């Protein structure tokens, strides 16, 4: 991981990885969604609304996975002071928040015909909404740190502390048994029929690759912005140097 602490080395990898992740992710996501929309039969209990799960489940996975990524990057920044870790965490925040919002919106739309309500203050829904607010807070903190030139450590600590919500979201359906169904996929076994499970897993892989491509795009943008700022600052210092040198003897004589 420390090999990629050098932005030039990281960029040489990111330049070919971005289109690869993007196009493979797009192909898999579109294929899985088309499979889920047009080829999967209606579910015995949920009917046609089962098709919403092919976008809702990957969005939920990436909403939570995004925050896990922020927490890991924050730990790398605080422990090893990895120079790209702060950029990686910042790059994950907006895509993570968008996927979290998609999860909440599609879940609400699914809930109306299935549960008879758009929203319920159930453990899973509420903890997912808290995650959306955590993302908003993290983005505000990093933007403020960037604008005012303050330390990125506060945002990194916030990123690590906020990670406590991820296992709460995961276990919420077990701890507070309410409207949301218990976990359907656990380690080694699944309560979902293979007809639904296969396109669902392809959708999860496809959207994850797309997420990776978006994060790389954000990282490349943030690195380019930092390089421009560093170059302009260096140029301003170089421009000031002759003027300072000319002013120094005059000041000494005075």
């Amino acid at each position, binding site marked *: 991981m420390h090999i990629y602490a050098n932005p030039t080395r990281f960029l040489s990898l990111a330049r070919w990885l971005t289109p690869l992740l993007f196009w493979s992710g797009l192909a898999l996501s579109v294929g899985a*969604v088309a499979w889920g*929309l047009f080829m999967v039969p209606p579910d015995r209990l949920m*009917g*046609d*609304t089962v*098709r*919403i799960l092919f*976008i*809702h489940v990957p*969005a939920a996975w990436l909403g939570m996975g995004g925050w896990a990524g922020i927490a890991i990057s924050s730990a790398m920044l605080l422990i090893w002071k990895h120079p790209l870790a702060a950029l990686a965490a910042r790059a994950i925040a*907006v*895509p993570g928040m*968008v996927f979290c*919002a*998609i999860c909440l*919106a*599609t879940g609400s*739309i*699914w809930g*109306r*015909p299935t549960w*008879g309500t758009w929203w319920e203050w159930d453990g899973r829904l509420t903890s997912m909404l808290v995650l959306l607010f955590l993302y908003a807070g993290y983005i505000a903190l990093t933007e403020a740190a960037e604008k005012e030139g303050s330390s990125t450590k506060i945002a990194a600590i916030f990123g690590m502390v906020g990670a406590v919500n991820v296992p709460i979201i995961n276990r919420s359906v077990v701890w507070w048994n309410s409207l949301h169904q218990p976990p359907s996929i656990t380690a080694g076994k699944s309560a979902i029929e293979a007809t639904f499970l296969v396109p669902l897993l392809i959708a999860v892989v496809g959207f994850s690759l*797309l997420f990776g491509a*978006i994060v790389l*795009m*954000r990282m*490349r*943008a*943030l690195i*380019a*912005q930092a*390089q*421009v700022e560093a*170059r*302009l600052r260096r140029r301003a210092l170089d421009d000031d140097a002759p003027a300072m040198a000319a002013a120094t003897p005059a000041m000494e004589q005075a």
Partner: protein
Amino acid sequence: MMREQLNQWDFVLMAYGVGVVALAMLIAWAWRSMARAEARRDAVRRR
């Protein structure tokens, strides 16, 4: 007993509409900000 008759496909299309629009906007924003930032960096290097 009164029971609501809801067309489930309306909800399916609404969910995919929201998801696809949000994702398309995210991709367009990420790509555009990357392309702009890299073009600006190259212009500053050439100057």
